[in-house]
């Protein structure tokens, strides 16, 4: 396995709310390798976006604060960096694609303006070279006639094109780590296929490490090497993509996989179900978590032991570069 670029250890991020302090992310540990992709999966509110914002040190403070843990980038702890040191990392060495291409671009500046801003900030280039670089980036992400498109405003572009601009911006300084927060959620399937293909191509070419945050397990299966499943702020299952999809062990992961409708002519050979399997109930509020396992109230395999002790993340299989671990006391 290639070298580790980013190591996150026991990350804990809390938010101070009117009703008390909420730990949005608790005890999250993972590594990201050069040229590989880690997928973070989970439903809204599970802490996947907070994890990525913590890495970028973009958690608004107050109310949020990283209360424990380490984020090591090439061995150095990002949490000890000063704001100006962090600014040199952000966008330059670690960069991020945000979820909504519609709202993440500034509507009153041309896309060229916004692209050039980040290039000029991090690279010592003349303004002419910056523009040339911006055009080159737009070309790289597949925007037709980039030399004239660069002077367009965001509203003149379609959703897929705007997402490409966001990707161009994120990649313009050749980052070592790219965090993509739901990069295709707002897009149609045909455009999603284009964007995923593009990311994969670029990753191969530049060798960057990628964190892909998504709730679409289909996308994970296609793009990722490792998978981490989160639930209510904690990691519940972590392993290689083959292992997680072949042998999902946590009831939540199984529930997620089973609740996706299968196609009649499904290439996976699964039989089409008349009725979808569901996970009953809803995600518990972080302010009002049950004692013990956080998934207990929705779990079909719940035991008395689940209601008393908070299960630890434990390794159940260790024959890959990444051990398969789950946060569940049962062996299913």
């Amino acid at each position: 396995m290639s070298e580790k670029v980013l190591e996150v250890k026991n990350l804990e991020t809390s938010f101070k709310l009117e009703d008390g302090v909420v730990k949005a992310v608790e005890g999250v540990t993972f590594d990201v390798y050069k040229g590989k992709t880690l997928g973070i999966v989970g439903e809204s509110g599970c802490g996947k976006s907070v994890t990525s914002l913590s890495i970028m040190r973009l958690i608004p403070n107050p109310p949020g604060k990283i209360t424990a843990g380490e984020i090591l980038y090439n061995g150095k702890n990002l949490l000890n960096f000063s704001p100006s040191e962090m600014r040199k990392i952000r966008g330059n060495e670690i960069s991020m694609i945000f979820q909504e291409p519609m709202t993440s671009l500034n509507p009153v500046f041309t896309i060229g303006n916004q692209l050039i801003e980040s290039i000029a900030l991090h690279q010592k280039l003349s303004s002419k070279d910056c523009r040339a670089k911006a055009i080159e980036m737009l070309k790289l992400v597949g925007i037709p006639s980039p030399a004239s498109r660069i002077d367009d405003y965001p509203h003149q572009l379609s959703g897929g094109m705007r997402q490409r601009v966001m990707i161009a911006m994120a990649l313009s300084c050749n980052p070592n780590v790219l965090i993509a927060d739901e990069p295709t959620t707002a897009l149609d399937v045909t455009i999603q296929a284009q964007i995923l293909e593009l990311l994969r191509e670029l990753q191969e070419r530049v060798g960057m490490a990628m964190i892909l945050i998504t709730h679409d397990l289909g996308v994970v299966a296609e793009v990722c090497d490792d998978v981490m499943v989160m639930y209510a702020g904690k990691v519940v299952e972590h392993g290689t993509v083959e292992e997680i999809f072949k042998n999902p062990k946590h009831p939540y992961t199984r529930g997620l996989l089973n609740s996706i409708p299968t196609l009649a002519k499904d290439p996976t050979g699964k039989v089409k179900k008349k009725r979808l399997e569901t996970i009953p109930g809803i995600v518990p509020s972080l302010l009002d978590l049950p004692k013990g396992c956080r998934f207990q109230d929705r779990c079909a395999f719940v035991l008395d032991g689940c209601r008393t002790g908070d299960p630890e993340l434990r390794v159940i299989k260790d024959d890959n570069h990444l051990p398969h671990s789950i946060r569940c006391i049962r062996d299913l």
Partner: protein
Amino acid sequence: MSLNSNPQTGDVLLSVKNIVKRFPIKGGILNREVATVRAVSDVSFDIHKGETLGLVGESGCGKSTLGRAILRLIEPTAGNVFYRGQDITKLAPEEMRRLRRKMQIIFQDPYASLNPRMTVEQILSEPIDIHGLAHSKEEKRKRIFHLADLVGLRKESIQRYPHEFSGGQRQRICIARALAVEPEFIVCDEPVSALDVSIQAQIVNLLQDLQKELGLTYLFIAHDLKVVEHISTRVAVMYLGKIVEIAESEVLYENPQHPYTQALLSAIPIPDPTLKKKRIILKGDVPSPINPPNGCYFHPRCPKVTDQCKVVWPKLEGVAGDSIIHEAACLYADKRHKPDEGILNQ
């Protein structure tokens, strides 16, 4: 629902004939019409009693506009909609209001489609009051409890406000509101798109249960092809305001004829990492409906395009080998008739 319940022999509940919706774009000093958005062009289909017709397509292809035009929530520019044989595009507003009892809609965003200042009870009372479906307070209460029960909401929760509910529960409230007037036909406009995966499955199951229990007919609009296949009897694929293919769900997914349908289906990510799929990646974006291309609307992105496609606008026609109701609008689909019957595009 399978191939056995042949929708062709079933009663036609709703029939859409050549419906067109254009939106004018006004501009200039005189505020004259400078261009038109052709949101829906010349769409026709039937929906049979008790079936679910799925409508898929990318954003901006006109699927929501079509859903609303059918209910006359936006007036269609041309064309007719027959509900049980009656042309509803000719009805007076008052008659239309009465008929709306039979035709309801569920919207995509359960966060935006409920009034935040009304309790669930008030939300559910409104349609009951408007259509005078309850004669006493007790009767209304009973009805509301029954509705809450139908969609799986607790009785106590009807005193609460929408913000106290999660997305899935709000969608249940929206469904209960649509059901309050005992409709026969419901347009479901992306009812699960805004929900998490585990909640999506709950709502899809609920919609299927209600259909069985109450004999409902759905027009199910969505862009998630897997959900559509799961719930639909037949599926229609839309592109730039036109239906390019329509068939029974199994047939369409097994044997797609239109290159657009093929590309759409191949783009679905499959949750199996061992599988390396051959994918048709379409180039470019959906063209603007203000200025659609000549000939076949799909030709600028089509991998199988020929010169013929750039001038001829293919008609929706039956496909050989399949049941009569598999129709595709492509010159090179496996046709029963000779492919030279397309109309020259003006």
